[in-house]
């Protein structure tokens, strides 16, 4: 891992971006076909609570001051993800209720923790809107570790996730352990959200997960194509967004979203042409 240490901050940012731009659309494709892309919004806010708790604790308790707040973010994201899964079962016919419940809990708790910890506003600004120049070495290794975990889960369980998303009943009859897979899927969502947030920012994590596949589904004809095109769009958005935000000196997450939206419009245009 020595090469990691020799990287300049911009190189770190670009590597983080490429990793995020690869993993997020894959998760996005599964969320899309399950019609639960909105989950990413709720979880990003609960991740913020975790990060705020992490920062607060590192100030209050010397013992944990070395801990990267991103880990705390992941922990909260994981709890939130499992809670959403539970809430969706409780509100069987109103599954979408789980989202505002978790989202508002996240925002409320974050507000309390942020005001209690009293960190500088710029630090929060970076967490909210993303920043490439603040990607530290520790952040980058966090991103790489979580990405590897996420990729491992997705490639080993690809078939299982696919068949569950398509037809849950058939999946269970084919011997797929649906309950366990759904828990694993919750872990996966938590991993990707907490991974993506340092570069793209809490408020825009959902965009990175959703927009590339929103574009790819316009022209894709199969699930495979959604994945592949989603990754291509994700890469272009990330790299384009990072580079332009650096030169324009604006929030990285913002530029990433702008590029994604341009790609989305492009995909819509292509679709129009195909049907014309």
């Amino acid at each position, binding site marked *: 891992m020595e090469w990691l240490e020799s990287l300049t901050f911009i190189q770190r940012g670009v590597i983080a971006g490429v990793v995020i731009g690869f993993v997020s659309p894959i998760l996005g494709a599964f969320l899309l076909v399950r019609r639960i892309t909105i989950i990413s919004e709720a979880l990003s806010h609960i991740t913020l609570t975790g990060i705020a708790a992490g920062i607060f604790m590192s100030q209050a308790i010397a013992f944990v001051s070395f801990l990267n707040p991103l880990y705390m973010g992941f922990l909260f994201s994981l709890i939130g993800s499992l809670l959403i899964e539970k809430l969706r079962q409780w509100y069987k016919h109103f599954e979408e209720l789980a989202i505002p419940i978790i989202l508002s809990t996240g925002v409320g708790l974050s507000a309390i923790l942020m005001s209690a910890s009293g960190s500088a506003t710029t630090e929060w600004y970076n967490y909210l809107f993303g920043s490439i120049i603040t990607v530290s070495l520790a952040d980058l290794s966090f991103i790489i570790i979580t990405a590897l975990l996420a990729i491992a889960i997705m490639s080993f369980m690809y078939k299982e996730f696919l*068949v569950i998303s398509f037809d849950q009943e058939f999946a*269970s009859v*084919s011997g797929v352990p649906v309950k366990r897979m759904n828990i694993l899927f919750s872990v996966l969502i938590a991993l990707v959200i907490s991974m993506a947030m340092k570069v793209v920012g809490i408020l825009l994590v959902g965009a990175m997960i959703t927009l590339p596949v929103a574009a790819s589904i316009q022209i894709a004809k*199969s699930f495979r194509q959604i994945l592949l095109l989603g990754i291509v769009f994700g890469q272009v958005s990330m790299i384009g967004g990072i580079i332009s935000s650096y030169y324009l000196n604006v929030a990285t997450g913002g530029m990433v979203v702008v590029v994604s939206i341009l790609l989305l419009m492009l995909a819509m245009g292509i679709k129009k042409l195909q049907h014309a």
Partner: protein
Amino acid sequence: MGHRHQLTDSVIQVNHLSFKYTSQYVLEDITLHVRKGAFLGLVGPNGSGKSTLVKCLLGIQTPQQGDISLFGEPLKKFSGWDRIGYVSQKANSFNSGFPATVFEVVSMGLYGKIGLFRFLTKKHKQKVYEAIEKVEMSAYTNENIGNLSGGQQQRVFIARALVSDPDLLILDEPTVGVDVHSVQQFYTMLKQLNQEHGITLVLITHDIGAMTDYVTDVACLNKHLHFHGDTDTFTESENEMMSTLYGHDVHMLTHNHDHSACEVPTS
């Protein structure tokens, strides 16, 4: 088919099964035995518990009382799910916005078999093409499932159930929405699967008239199991059977648009 030596020729064994969703039992004290090689037609009016019984068999629902064995193994311990093909009643229980091709959908029928090996081999792909061919959907192999008609989708789901070469095939009103000509072809195909390949079949249907030409056994369900025996015995006492099952106003009770299903045959 027998990949393994069969210790018993019992494929499905149900003992004193009772089931309720909420407070009222919808199945009561069902005892049913399906032997290897049988082609069972399961009939009964709407709401009689046919689909529920099948869901209990497949472990989708858990009965309050009684026990179930599949291929001689108690359901709780049963793991040979790749030996069972299932086509559910609602073809639209699937996620219809899912952008999957016919090929992708049918290959999902193999996932239980492939296990942790991630990719479909050439042989698997060949199987998928064959299953699609069997239901005469080859022209649509790369078409998006959402763009097909209801009857065409149903054929794709039948192919998905067939692709893993199951030893037991359970079909819950598979021909609703399939046109008359294709229904006959479909029944012929089932009979072939049953006689030539020895696949055990359970077919839920309202199409009692057509069914009796193909099945070996009949079971009549209406909360209780009213009749279970071979097809000949069933046809002998069919009129009685039908009036106990359906009451007198038989014509009102079928919802199948297939014309032949609207008449209860008088033997």
